[in-house]
Structures are given as structure tokens and as C-alpha cells.
């Protein structure tokens, strides 16, 4: 039966969807968060394994062209599932310590992951919209998880209102593009001949919708508040999986629906990339709260990634995918350690000054934090450096030299705020006599794996870059 | 019917006009009759006689007298009420419940309008009722009204789900939403040679579907045992507390119209609509109207009968019945009917 083969092409989606429902039922009947946690890990790992094996499988379309699989989509799935799996592993200890360990969290995470998987495998604007909405609605709930903490509620409400607004833009864009091209399939939009007012308005609104989801300046206002207010491991999930999914979908739309209009949207993205890098880095410099700092740093990273999008070549797209992978690894790691420090003193223990002298109390955590932060700066032996290098190189090939210069300067400036955390960790005296407990084995192990991957792909990027490069040699 | 009208009226807008006001006339006459009937049924079930004096024979003109009395009452709008909404609410309720009758086929020769999505239209327009109830309760600026309106709206929207799901399980069998076509499918005597070709005899699950539909429609029409909106012991008058005189009368007419509407829908979907129970005997457009109204009135009578038989539910029991029993059951029944249709 051919429909059975079609179902195989979306196997990770099916696994995660079924897992979400299963965990929801576990919650309803047993109420046990431990069981839900175990089930979530098992299902996420299975989906990750399937997605990794799909990387080497065929590429194509299924479900009458609604879904695209293999290649970029599979890599998007790998990104999403990596983000999901590691944030779930880190979540348990953190949520247990802060008293918010309820089984619903895991089903919401799984539903959000389902939306992201749909987003990265969409070949049609309607599928894309479905994915974005499933993802966003679950994330709004997750942001407001700690409902007796004011910041969390504020984060959820802000995220919801602004997110709904941005969704409106996206939907208007889709509607106008449909009006201009008569279809919501990406390939049909690419074939539009009559590029009139409606077409350009549609493209513009679509870009605005995406800029919001990837938190590009000036649509970034929600990011710091939401990242600070949400529980830290949930923030890790939002910052990595959802952003990676949005970027992959952005690449799909740009490369498949709008390849002919590249000259036009490239200029727009050029401008927004510039703004995002400059504003993100400057605002990160003055943050005293580590979570806010990481939020602004994620805005800055979005800026670097957008350089690759502005270049818009196949090499640039594969560089962007690599960057997203490195970004996912190091961000989850950094947020994981913030979460670890946080569980000793509660939700507000995230000021930089709180970290004074903590580095030597649990050296392994201090060292891991340095690895992730150095990787974010973009210092050679780590994956973050390779990501930045490849994106900048692809942009230079396309002649975007001024943009790359700004990017390099911005990342030089970023050294200050990343190293400031390390200075507090290792070079200041501890003020409050806090005693750090030992993190769990799984917690440490997952952070170690993340750090190991960061270093491995920093030293040996060829494994991944060759694979990513091969995605773009095949034409659909 | 349309040809008959056209034979002595100038063709065009006037025919359409006369054609479409017939339901309104039927309902107004019916409402007067049904209110009298309710009193008589109530009386006789309790071993009383009910109204006996007004008009002579068994107090037949009691409701007309009541109507005249109501018209002479003072038209009161509370000082603190939201005047506009307060005045609008009865009109919306009245118009919505009466407009729904347009899609009901009263006989093989008469239907107000051949709307293709007939049953869908009826479901859609009757859901305006809960809007008018919320409007009335909110505008009154009275605690009883607001509480009653919230409860009534919660009840109405909750029971709308099982109603619609059972309607859908009939639609699975008929394959059309047009009630005229649904009725035409039920013409003749197919089952076992003598049973009429009605949908209730179609499969055992249709009987279950009808029972579910009838229970849900009792709640939709706010009849006992689901008449929480009128539970005077807790809520005084519910959303109608501040209404008096003719404005209250309009709500009353709406309730009775709603009862007939749901009974007629039930008769059309399950009991062959205007089809005669005796095959071609006593068949035809005029007899059709007779059978249709008779079937509707029998269901209305059962509703009145239940009122004096069953006690009222509590508000939490009301929600339990709907969400824990009726909705799952109606979905299961929908699946079973679809399976039955696939196999046979």
C-alpha cells in the first residue's frame, strides 16, 4: 500500500504525536510525572534515531506534496529532537527541585515538538501554519508553567499576545501569497509569474511573521522577558528547538517558494541581520541577569544566522544548518547549567553577581559552562567557531563583505558579556556561602555529551558539513 | 403549493412573501394551543382539570386571554439595565427560533426554503438563542439574571454537542443535509413488508441515536428534567427575572417554538417526517402536513408528560450527564452507525 510508505516518511511525527497523547493519558490515569518523564525520553530518543537515519535516506515529497522529507527536513527534525531530548532530560531535576514537576509539562513539550516537526517538514504554507500554531500554543502554556510566579505569568501573557499578533501577520502573508499565486504549495508560489503588489505584500508579511518567530530586531521585544520568565529548562527548549525549527522552515520557504525573488528579499534580510546583530549585542552588554543575557545573545546569534540567509546560496544554507546545530548544543548546555545553579535558591537566582565564586565549588559545572560560553563566543576548537566561520565565508563569497565585518566586530564585542559570567564564576570571592549539591548522573552525563559534541564538531566538522552540503546538490 | 399560490396571485415577490410567512403563522397558532395543552396535561396528570372557564369548552381561549392581559401590562426596563441590550435580547431569541422553521419540510408540497444545508442551518441559527440569553442576563444587571444566564448558556452549549453528533449519525445514513431529501428517502414500506421505511427502523443503533437526541433536545429546549433556567427555588426567574409583560411573553413564545422545532427535527430525522405510517394510504401534500404536525405534537406531548413525571437535576449532575455520558455515548454511536453502514 503506497499510503503506508507515505506514513513512513513522517515516522518521527507519528512517534511524537502518539507519545504526546500517551503521556497525556499517563498523566490523566496515574498522575506520575516520573513515568511521563521516562516515556517522553524513550519516545524522543526513538524519534531522534529515526530522524538521524532519515538523514541518509531519500528526499522527496509525500501526501500530495504537503510534506517534504529527507535532507533539510530530516536535519531540521534532528535539531528539534536534539533540543527536545536534552531539555527533557535536564527538566526533571530542575522542575523537581523547584516544585513544578507535573506530568503535563512533558505532554506539552511533546505537542510543541510535534508542531516543530510539522514545521520543518512542511512543503505547503498551510502545513507550515499548522506547525507554527501547534508549536506556539504549546509554548505559550509552557512559558506560564509556574503560575504563582509573577514573571512567568507575565512571560506567558506577553508571549501569547505578541505571538498571536505575529501569527496574524504570517496568516495575512499566506493569504496574500495565495491570492497572487492561486496556490499554497511552495513550488507553485515559486512559479508565480505575475509579481504584483499583492505578491510583494504577501512576501513582506510572511517575512515579518518569520522575523518574529526567530526574534530578529525589531521584532525581538518579547524574547528577553519570555526567556527570563519561563522556567529555565523550558527556556532552553524554546531558545533551541523552536528557533531551529523556525529557521529551517524559513530556509525551506526562501529556497523553494521565493528563489527567483532572492535579489529582493536578500536586501531586506541584510538590513534586519545588521540591526539584529548590533542591537542584540549592545543590549546583551548591559544585562546583569544571566537569563536575559542569554536571551539577548540568542538574538545576536539569530543575527549571525541571518547573514547566511541573506547570502542565500546553497553553501550558505548548509552553513546555516550547521550553525543551528552548534547553536542548539551550546545553548541547551548553557541553560542547563543556569538551571543547575538556580535550583539551589529558587527562580530569581540568575543575577551575574549571584554566581560569584561558584565555579570552584562544583568544578565540572564551571568547566562545562566555560566550554559552552567559549563556543558561543566563537573561539576555535569549538563548534560555534566553525558555524560562524562557515556562515561568514559563504557570505563573503556572495560579496556581503560589509555585513560580515559588522558580524565579526559584533562577535568580538560579545566576548565581554560571555566572559563576564566566567569572571564571576572563577575570579570572584563567594559572598553568600552557598553549598552546591551534586547534580544527578544523567544530568551531568547529558551536559558532558553536549560539551563533547561541541568539541567534536569543532575539531572535526567535515563529518557533518559534507552531509549538509549533499542536501543541496539534489534538486526537487 | 407554490403552483397553487401562483394560480391566483401575481407571480414574483408576493408569492415568495406569502410562501415564507406560513411557518410564522403555524408557530403563532401552535404556541397558543401548546400553552393551553400544557396546562391541561399538567392538570390531568395531577388529577385536576386545568383551565375550564375562559371561552366555554374546556377553557380553550385561556391563552388568548393571557396574551391580551400581557399586552396590557406595563413595559418595565430596570433603571440600571443596559437598555439597548435589554430590549434587543427578546427580539433576537424570537427571530432566531422562528427563522429556523424555514428549513423544516411541513409536507411534500411545502418547505419554507429548499436550503441545501438545511439541518446545518437549523443548528447554526438556533445557537443564536444562547447569545440572546447571555445578552438578557447581562443587560438586566441583576444577580439572579446573570447567574441564570450563565447556567442556561452553559447548558445549551453543552447539550448542543450530543444533539449535533446524533444528527450527524443520521446524516451518515442519508448522505444529505437537505431535510426534504431526508424525508423523501423515508417514503414507502421497505422493512419486513409492513414497517414504514423510517430511519428509526434502519438499524438498532438508530433507536439509541433517537433516545440520545431526545434527551439532548429536552435540555436544549430547557424542559424538565433539565429546566435549570427556571429553577425558581434557586434562581428566582433565571435570565428572565427582570423581564415582564410582553417582553417576557416573547421569551415564553420562543421556548415553545423551540420545543416544536426540536420535535419536528426529531420527527423528520427519525420518524419519516410527512410520510404516512400506512404507506400510500392517507398520503399526499395535505395529509403530509397533518402527519408532520401530528408526529411533532406527539413528541411535544411526551415532553410535557415528562415534566410532571421526573424531578429536576442539580446543576453539577446536569453537566455530568452531558459530558460524562451523552457525549461519549453519542460519539460511540456515531462510530457504530458508520460501521453498520460500511458493512451493510
Amino acid at each position, binding site marked *: 500500500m503506497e499510503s503506508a510508505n507515505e506514513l513512513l516518511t513522517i515516522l518521527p511525527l507519528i512517534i511524537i504525536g502518539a507519545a504526546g497523547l500517551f503521556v497525556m493519558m499517563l498523566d490523566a490515569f496515574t498522575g506520575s510525572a516520573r513515568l511521563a518523564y521516562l516515556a517522553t525520553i524513550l519516545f524522543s530518543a526513538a524519534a531522534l534515531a529515526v530522524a538521524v537515519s532519515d538523514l541518509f535516506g531519500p528526499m522527496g515529497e509525500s501526501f500530495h506534496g504537503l510534506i517534504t522529507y529527507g535532507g533539510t527536513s530530516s536535519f531540521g527534525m534532528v535539531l528539534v529532537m536534539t533540543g527536545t531530548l536534552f531539555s527533557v532530560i535536564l527538566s526533571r531535576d530542575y522542575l523537581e527541585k523547584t516544585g513544578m514537576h507535573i*506530568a503535563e509539562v512533558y505532554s506539552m513539550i511533546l505537542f510543541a515538538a510535534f508542531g516543530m516537526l510539522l514545521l520543518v517538514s512542511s512543503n505547503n504554507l498551510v502545513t507550515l501554519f499548522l506547525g507554527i500554531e501547534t508549536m506556539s500554543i504549546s509554548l505559550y502554556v509552557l512559558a506560564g508553567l509556574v503560575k504563582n510566579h509573577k514573571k512567568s505569568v507575565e512571560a506567558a501573557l506577553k508571549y501569547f499576545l505578541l505571538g498571536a499578533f505575529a501569527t496574524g501577520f504570517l496568516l495575512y502573508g499566506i493569504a496574500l501569497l495565495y491570492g497572487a499565486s492561486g496556490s499554497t504549495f511552495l513550488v507553485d508560489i515559486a512559479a508565480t509569474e505575475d509579481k504584483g503588489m499583492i505578491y510583494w505584500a504577501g512576501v513582506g508579511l510572511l517575512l515579518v511573521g518569520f522575523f518574529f518567530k526567530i526574534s530578529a530586531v525589531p521584532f525581538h521585544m518579547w524574547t528577553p522577558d519570555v526567556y527570563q520568565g519561563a522556567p529555565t529548562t523550558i527556556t532552553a527548549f524554546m531558545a533551541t528547538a523552536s528557533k531551529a525549527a523556525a529557521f529551517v522552515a524559513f530556509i525551506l520557504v526562501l529556497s523553494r517558494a521565493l528563489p527567483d525573488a532572492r535579489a529582493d528579499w536578500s536586501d531586506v534580510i541584510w538590513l534586519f541581520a545588521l540591526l539584529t546583530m548590533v542591537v542584540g549585542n549592545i543590549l546583551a552588554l548591559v544585562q546583569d541577569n544571566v537569563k536575559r543575557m542569554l536571551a539577548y545573545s540568542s538574538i545576536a546569534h539569530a543575527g549571525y544566522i541571518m547573514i547566511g540567509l541573506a547570502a542565500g546560496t546553497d553553501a550558505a544554507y548548509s552553513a546555516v544548518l550547521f550553525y543551528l546545530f552548534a547553536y542548539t548544543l551550546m545553548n541547551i548546555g548553557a541553560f542547563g547549567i543556569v538551571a543547575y545553579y538556580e535550583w539551589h535558591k529558587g527562580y530569581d537566582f540568575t543575577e551575574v553577581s549571584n554566581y560569584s565564586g561558584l565555579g570552584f565549588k562544583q568544578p565540572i559545572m564551571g568547566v562545562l559552562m566555560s566550554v559552552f560560553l567559549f563556543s558561543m563566543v566563537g573561539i576555535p576548537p569549538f563548534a560555534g567557531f566553525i558555524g560562524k566561520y562557515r556562515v561568514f565565508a559563504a557570505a563573503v563569497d556572495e560579496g556581503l563583505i560589509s555585513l560580515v565585518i559588522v558580524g565579526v566586530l559584533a562577535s568580538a564585542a560579545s566576548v565581554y558579556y560571555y566572559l563576564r559570567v566566567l569572571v564571576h564564576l572563577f575570579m570572584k570571592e563567594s559572598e553568600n556561602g552557598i553549598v552546591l549539591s551534586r547534580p544527578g548522573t544523567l544530568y551531568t552525563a547529558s551536559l558532558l555529551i553536549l560539551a563533547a559534541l561541541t568539541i567534536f564538531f569543532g575539531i572535526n566538522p567535515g563529518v557533518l558539513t559534507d552531509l549538509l552540503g549533499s542536501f543541496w546538490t539534489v534538486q526537487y | 403549493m407554490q403552483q397553487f399560490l401562483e394560480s391566483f396571485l401575481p407571480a414574483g415577490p408576493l408569492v415568495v412573501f406569502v410562501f415564507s410567512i406560513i411557518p410564522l403563522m403555524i408557530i403563532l397558532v401552535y404556541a397558543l394551543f401548546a400553552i393551553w395543552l400544557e396546562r391541561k396535561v399538567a392538570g390531568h396528570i395531577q388529577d385536576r382539570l386545568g383551565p375550564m372557564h375562559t371561552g366555554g369548552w374546556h377553557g380553550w381561549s385561556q391563552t388568548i386571554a393571557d396574551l391580551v392581559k400581557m399586552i396590557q401590562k406595563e413595559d418595565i426596563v430596570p433603571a440600571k439595565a443596559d437598555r439597548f441590550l435589554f430590549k434587543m435580547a427578546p427580539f433576537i431569541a*424570537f*427571530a432566531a427560533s422562528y427563522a429556523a422553521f424555514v428549513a423544516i419540510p411541513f409536507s411534500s408540497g411545502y418547505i*419554507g426554503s429548499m436550503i441545501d444545508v438545511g439541518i446545518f442551518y437549523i443548528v447554526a441559527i438556533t445557537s443564536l438563542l444562547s447569545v440572546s440569553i447571555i445578552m438578557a442576563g447581562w443587560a*438586566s444587571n441583576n444577580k439572579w439574571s446573570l447567574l441564570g444566564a450563565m447556567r442556561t448558556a452553559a447548558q445549551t452549549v453543552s447539550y448542543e*454537542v450530543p444533539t449535533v453528533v446524533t444528527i450527524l449519525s443520521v446524516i451518515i445514513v442519508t448522505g*444529505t443535509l437537505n431535510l426534504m431529501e431526508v424525508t423523501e428517502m423515508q417514503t414507502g414500506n421497505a422493512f419486513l413488508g409492513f414497517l414504514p421505511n423510517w430511519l428509526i427502523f434502519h438499524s438498532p443503533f438508530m433507536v439509541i441515536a433517537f433516545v440520545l437526541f431526545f434527551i439532548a433536545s429536552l435540555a436544549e429546549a430547557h424542559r424538565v428534567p433539565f429546566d435549570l433556567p427556571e429553577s425558581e427555588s434557586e434562581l428566582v426567574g433565571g435570565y428572565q427575572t427582570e423581564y415582564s409583560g410582553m417582553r417576557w411573553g416573547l421569551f415564553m413564545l420562543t421556548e415553545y417554538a423551540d420545543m416544536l422545532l426540536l420535535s419536528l427535527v426529531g420527527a423528520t430525522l427519525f420518524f419519516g417526517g410527512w410520510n404516512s405510517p400506512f404507506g400510500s394510504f392517507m398520503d399526499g401534500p395535505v395529509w403530509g402536513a397533518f402527519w408532520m404536525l401530528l408526529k411533532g405534537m406527539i413528541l411535544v406531548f411526551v415532553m410535557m408528560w415528562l415534566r410532571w413525571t421526573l424531578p429536576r437535576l442539580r446543576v453539577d449532575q446536569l453537566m455530568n450527564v452531558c459530558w460524562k455520558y451523552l457525549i461519549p455515548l453519542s460519539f460511540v454511536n456515531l462510530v457504530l452507525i458508520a460501521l453498520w453502514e460500511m458493512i451493510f
Partner: protein
Amino acid sequence: MLEQYIPVLLLVALAVVTAMAFIVLSRLLGPQRPASNKLGAYESGMDPVGQARDRYSVSFYIIAMEFIVFDLEVIFIYPFAVRFQEFGAGTFWAMMLFIFILFLGLVYTLKKGSFDWTAVPLQDEQSQESSYKIS
């Protein structure tokens, strides 16, 4: 196509006119003697206390949300029900999956006690908070 709905419009207009006529008649025939007692809110004969437009139980909002979910899902079943006999088994199983997921959602909300009206005390937010934590 749309002329099917002309009778609907006519009937609505006529219903409104009839209702208007009743009200106008009552205005003409009935007395008009407003008094402050008569125009006040009815509160079992006492003077009204405070405003009527107060906060009310969250259960009503939950019911409203559940209704929207189910009503929307039912809208998807309409086209299935009409064309089901022509499309056959594939459509049937697709719809079964759809209804199954919907059913799981219902089971979840039932288990979580969305419809247990008596179990949730109105003012007692603290106890709700603690019952929510699963240790």
C-alpha cells in the same frame, strides 16, 4: 443559490416586526407609572447589594472552551458524514483516528475534573494550588 435564503430574511424581518407590534401594542395599552422600587433590580425584596456584574466561577469558562473545541471538531465531521458512503473505508479509518484523538482529549479533561462542579470551591484558590502539585 443565494435566493434560497430570501425566505429566511423575510421570516426574520417578519418575526421582528411581529415582536415589535406586540411591544408597541403593550406600550399603547399598558400603563406607564415608573417608580424607583419598580425600576430597581429584584433581589428578593431587599435593596440590591453591590453590582451584579461580578466575577463568576471559572467552570463556566472551561465549559465554554470545551464547547468551542467540540463544536469545531463536529464541523469537520459534517463533510465526512455527507460524503462518507461514496468515499468508503479510507475516509472511515481517518475519521476514526480523528474521533479517537478527540475522545482522548475528553477522557483527559474528565480525569482532570473539568466538569466536577462541586469539587472546585469558588474562593479556595490555595487548596487548588496544592492539589495540583503531584509530589
